[in-house]
């Protein structure tokens, strides 16, 4: 069996390739997908590499089926992933909701394109941020991460699996056309330095197993099908034993637990990066490929005498309110550039509540935001 990690320690890779390699490094052994630009390379790489590590790649008939298949594989005990772009992501929402309610770990990569509907397939966009959080019907929490470099694509994919496994929740990994098709050198960590988290499986005998137990962490142990723990999995709201219930107390307990398990883990779920923030009085809050431009703009602003800094959000949801709040309290001006009409800007404003001056900068023409544009906005009022 082939080694999971590439033989070379450093490699020139495209973002999509790095996502595929990150998934393999995280222990993903099942991938189901449907061709779509600009995500198809993830499928292509995994169709070649999955069989070499004893895993399975399957191309399904559509994205609905892909999502169903990865949930099935995860319930059978295998770490699983799918990858798509906007139109496919819309189709997946039904079964993403199923994964939320059944607490089935899985990773869903959405390489964002520009525009709505079929949109701008070969252009970048960040229009799916709110869909990633609220795309399913019902009121389920979910984890949404965003990558901005090819190295991120590797590292954050591993983190996505770890969070998904630990918290028994689907994790949406948002990339965009720029990040996914950019080629950069990635220096791989040595395998022993990669932290891998696996779901907790029950240690009790089957007759004691409570598949959706309302325990102190809010995260029940997960038995795989076929291991002697025969239980029921359903998208209907269920009791601790997994059977459908409409009893108001049980419904309330169940829904509260889904939120509670994340609230208790916010310290490790909410991932950010800061750049030159220590003494900053002007900040950019950005994510995805825009954070790259923002980083350059911050350097340029500093050279022009503006004490700028960058707060890069890797975790978009649960929205890192307290971490953002710290920046809002520290800075006199905050800029939120995005390739949409201001989806995270709205979240920042929700936290801001008038504390400081928050501006947005948006592009929705399928072009990415350049460092100069951000710099121009930062210096606008100097």
């Amino acid at each position, binding site marked *: 069996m082939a080694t999971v990690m590439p033989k070379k320690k450093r490699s020139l890779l495209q973002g999509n390739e790095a996502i595929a390699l990150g998934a393999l490094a995280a222990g993903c052994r099942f991938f189901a997908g449907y061709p779509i630009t600009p995500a198809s390379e993830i499928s292509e790489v995994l169709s070649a590499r999955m*069989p070499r590590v004893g895993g399975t790649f399957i191309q399904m008939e559509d994205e609905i089926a892909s999502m169903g298949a990865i949930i099935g594989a995860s319930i059978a005990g*295998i770490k699983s992933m799918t990858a798509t772009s906007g139109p496919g992501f819309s189709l997946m929402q039904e079964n993403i909701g199923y994964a939320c309610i059944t607490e089935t770990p899985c990773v869903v990569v959405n390489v964002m394109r520009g525009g709505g509907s079929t949109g701008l397939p070969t252009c970048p966009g960040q229009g799916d941020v709110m869909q990633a959080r609220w795309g399913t019907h019902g009121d389920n929490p979910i984890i949404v991460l965003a990558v901005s470099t090819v190295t991120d694509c590797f590292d954050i994919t591993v983190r996505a699996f770890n969070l998904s496994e630990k918290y028994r929740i689907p994790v949406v990994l948002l990339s965009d056309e720029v990040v996914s098709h950019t080629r950069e050198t990635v220096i791989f960590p040595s395998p022993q330095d990669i932290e891998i988290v696996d779901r907790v499986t029950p240690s009790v005998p089957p007759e004691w197993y409570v598949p959706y137990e309302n325990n102190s962490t809010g995260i029940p142990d997960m038995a795989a099908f076929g291991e002697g723990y025969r239980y029921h999995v359903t998208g209907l709201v269920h009791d601790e034993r997994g059977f459908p219930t409409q009893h108001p107390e049980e419904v309330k307990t169940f829904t509260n637990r889904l939120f509670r398990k994340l609230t208790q883990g916010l310290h490790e779920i909410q991932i950010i990066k800061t750049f030159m923030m220590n003494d900053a009085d002007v900040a950019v809050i950005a994510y995805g490929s825009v954070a790259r431009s923002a980083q350059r703009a911050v350097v340029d602003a500093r050279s022009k005498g503006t004490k700028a800094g960058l707060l890069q959000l890797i975790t978009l949801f649960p929205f890192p309110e307290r971490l953002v709040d710290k920046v809002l309290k520290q800075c006199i001006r905050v800029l939120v550039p995005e390739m949409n009409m201001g989806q995270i800007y709205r979240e920042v404003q929700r936290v801001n509540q008038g504390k400081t001056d928050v501006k947005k900068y948006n592009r929705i023409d399928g072009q990415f935001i350049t460092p100069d544009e951000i710099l121009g906005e930062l210096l606008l009022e100097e």
Partner: protein
Amino acid sequence: MPKEITKLIHKYLRHDKKFPHVWCPGCGNGVILGSLIRAIDRLGLTKDEIVLASGIGCSGRMPVYVDFNTLHTTHGRALTFATGIKLAKPSLTVITVMGDGDATAIGGNHFIHAARRNVNLTAIIINNQIYGMTGGQFSPTTPYGSHAATAPYGHIEHAFSIAELAVTAGAAFVGRGTVYHVQTLDKLIKAAVLKRGFSVVEIISNCHIQFGRRNEMGNPVTMMEWMRDHAVTVEKAEKMTSEDLEDKFTIGILADEEKPIYTEEYDKIRERAGD
């Protein structure tokens, strides 16, 4: 004739669930559940080896009652989940149970592709010719001219023949039975589960409440009598003229062929990919 029928079924039920089950008096779903359990018992499979996955609708409620690894998925998607489970753990025997609307309307695409792909799964499709749970709207198998909640003036669309659809899509095994011909049904399900490859059993069932009452067959007995009078075995049909067969449907094994199985083919891919 087996000595134990009901007693045997009880070995597989989750008695802590609410019984009698949720289905209407005389519903064919209960008959099919019994048939499925007997087939599994005769195959000597353990409860731990079986996965029973369903979609949405009256049929979707079946897994909750049996003590297997059970999965109640989204509408029409049971086969996609089943595909993931089977590929992740090929040692499991994965059976899906779906309704006619579930499998051939909302899940129609998954169904034909599962048949084409030939993953070793069994699809049991309960065809009661109507959407029962939602109140009797017409389904892809509602006959032309019949009445439904959304076809109050008579149905103007034409029905799928599920079994023939499966044959055309390439299913390795296709059988059709009814809830009246239970002993044939037991054998069909057993053969389908045993079959290596994608197998389909279409079961003509009765929804006398939602279909029957709107179509002059308002109780389970008249619907079962209709099955008795209109079903012809495949063998007998071969000797009948097309005129004689006009208002009849065939039961028995409609297709049984050997095709390479997906999981085995994928094992070869793993070898080819090598190091």
